[in-house]
């Protein structure tokens, strides 16, 4: 297994009076795609938002490339090479597709070669380049959201349930795009409930339940062990297969 790029050690998160994460330990190896699985309410989204410091960790330590980032402001994390694709896609509805992409290219004008590669992954975006993002379909918004994260080279991508609510044909397109992304050895931490999607893409996996990580290992091992799948993921797994 490669060296971890991201490491969470005993991370707790409170949202108001609610104690959501109860000591998360997680490592994300560099250059791999790590799947974060678990039932609804297990704490997957909270884990991503805590890494991005959108919700503060009340206890524990998060390191990125060996540096402690537990208290680092969100904008600094983004500048240091993290990209975040939230569950609701975070697309700016009143901005055009072009403006959404321009904003994502934080360090300057969009690199034409990079843009060509991104548009190659999601050809639909070119067609809607000057349209308001709010007029796109759910799948197209998801593509835009991921394309924004890819428009500049990133060290780590945090992606929250990209297949949620999408048609199977669109999910297949996303699988293709992530497979091409994997060839660039970009490190990805991807939250997912669709086990087929996770199985097709994941190198390693972590499973969460009730605010803690209850299993880590290779994705292939989990995919091969149905009993383990049932024990860790239960009915939520069956419903997605």
């Amino acid at each position, binding site marked *: 297994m490669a060296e971890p790029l991201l490491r969470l050690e005993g991370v707790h998160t409170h949202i108001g009076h609610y104690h959501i994460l109860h000591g998360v330990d997680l490592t994300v190896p560099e250059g791999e795609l790590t799947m974060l699985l678990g039932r609804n309410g297990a704490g997957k989204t909270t884990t991503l938002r805590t890494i991005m410091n959108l919700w503060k960790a009340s206890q524990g330590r998060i390191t990125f490339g060996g540096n402690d980032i537990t208290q680092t*402001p969100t904008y600094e994390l983004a500048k240091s090479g993290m990209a975040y694709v939230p569950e609701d896609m975070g697309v*700016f509805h009143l901005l055009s597709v072009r403006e959404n992409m321009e*904003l994502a290219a934080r360090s300057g004008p969009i690199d034409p070669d990079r843009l060509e590669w991104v548009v190659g992954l999601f050809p639909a975006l070119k067609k809607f380049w000057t349209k308001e993002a709010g007029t796109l379909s759910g799948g197209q918004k998801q593509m835009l959201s991921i394309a924004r994260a890819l428009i500049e080279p990133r060290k780590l991508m945090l992606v929250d349930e990209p297949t949620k609510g999408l048609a199977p044909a669109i999910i297949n397109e996303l699988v293709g795009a992530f497979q091409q992304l994997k060839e660039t050895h970009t490190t990805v931490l991807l939250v997912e409930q669709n086990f087929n999607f996770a199985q097709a893409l994941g190198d390693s996996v972590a499973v969460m339940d009730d605010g803690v990580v209850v299993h880590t290992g290779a994705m292939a091992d989990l995919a091969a062990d149905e009993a383990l799948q049932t024990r860790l993921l239960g009915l939520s797994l069956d419903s997605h297969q």
Partner: protein
Amino acid sequence: MSSAENTAAAAAGEPGLAQRLGERRGAALALALGALVFIIGMIVPLFGARWVNDVIAVIAAGFAVHGALSLYDVQQRAPQWYLLSLVVVTGFLAIAYHSGLSPTDAGGLAFSLGDALSSGAGSWTQMTINGLAMGLLIFIMASGMTLTFGLMGVLNLGHSAFITIGAYVLMTFLVSDWGRGLSGAESVVANVGLLALVVLVALVIAGVVGLLFERLIVKPVYDNHLKQILVTVGGGIIITQLIIAISGPNEVQLNQPATLSGSFIVGPVVVETFRLVAVAVGAAIFWGMLRVINRTKVGILIRAGVQSTEMVEAMGYRIKMLFIAVFMAGSALAAVGGVFWGLYDTLIHPEIGGLRLFQIIIVIIIGGLGSITGCFFGALLLGLLSNYVGFVAPEVAEFSSIALMVAVLMWRPQGLIPVIRM
């Protein structure tokens, strides 16, 4: 479209052909009925009291104009243009009708089409210029507040104090000896140069005070609207009291710079020079703001931030710096508005900003909180309606802005051009 297609369209939430035809018939009927009543009122004024005929004519004209606009679905496609057209055309018909009515020797009322067209058209043109000037000045003062609310979620009721700052910077210059000299000189260069200097100083002072206001007063109460209302009102009072302590509590009458004052006559219309200046300045500021908002990366950031501050931060932008910059710019714009409102009103007093706050709030509510274009249209509507109503029925002119707000909110509770927050 077949009945099956109609059913499918209805299921998709789109109006079917039958519904559209029904709407067209309704619109045509409104146009015909309104026009008929209006024309009858022209031929035979139905009532003895002039104001009763006026009210009926306004309602009939409004009904007819609404019908004409509805035939082309204007209110659905572009609500701001619908409302502006409704106000402007109905305003013309109402003013023309009012001007055409005159008492007869027999004690009744008669309508003269000649008077309506000559005197009415002149009065309408004058009221339109006045309304545009007033509306655009209110837009300058309101734009900063709507941006601050849209981007930062901060309801700054101390905004009016920055208008007062601008007005007092103007007064300080115009009452000084050398300022009076430049202002009184019959030289466009001297007058405009003085005004440019006043605007620059007002921008700097209001920007710096805005920075302190944001850091000391607003920053501790982000995300708490109730506390924002209390502390920003308090902050506004402190600024106003400081102004009184420095400049005194008395009213000061100003003279407009020589080449920007006075008036000229075009046909039947008397045009005040300064109102044209106000229209030009307001339009230029609106154009500039649109350029910045739509064509620059800062503008894209502001528009994105209005929708989701969290996502802007997650993309690597320091949203707090943007908050501070927008707050300073909003405060500075309010001061520029104060400079021009001071020249427009020519009477400077400590409540000059506070008295405008009511109209500013109405304008940003009508336009849709956070929308610059909405604020622009809201301000034009308020300015034009106040002037038209002020001409026909001065006693209800003040009430017209409240009526406008109530009507818009009943029709579109989120305002004319709402900005969606994710």
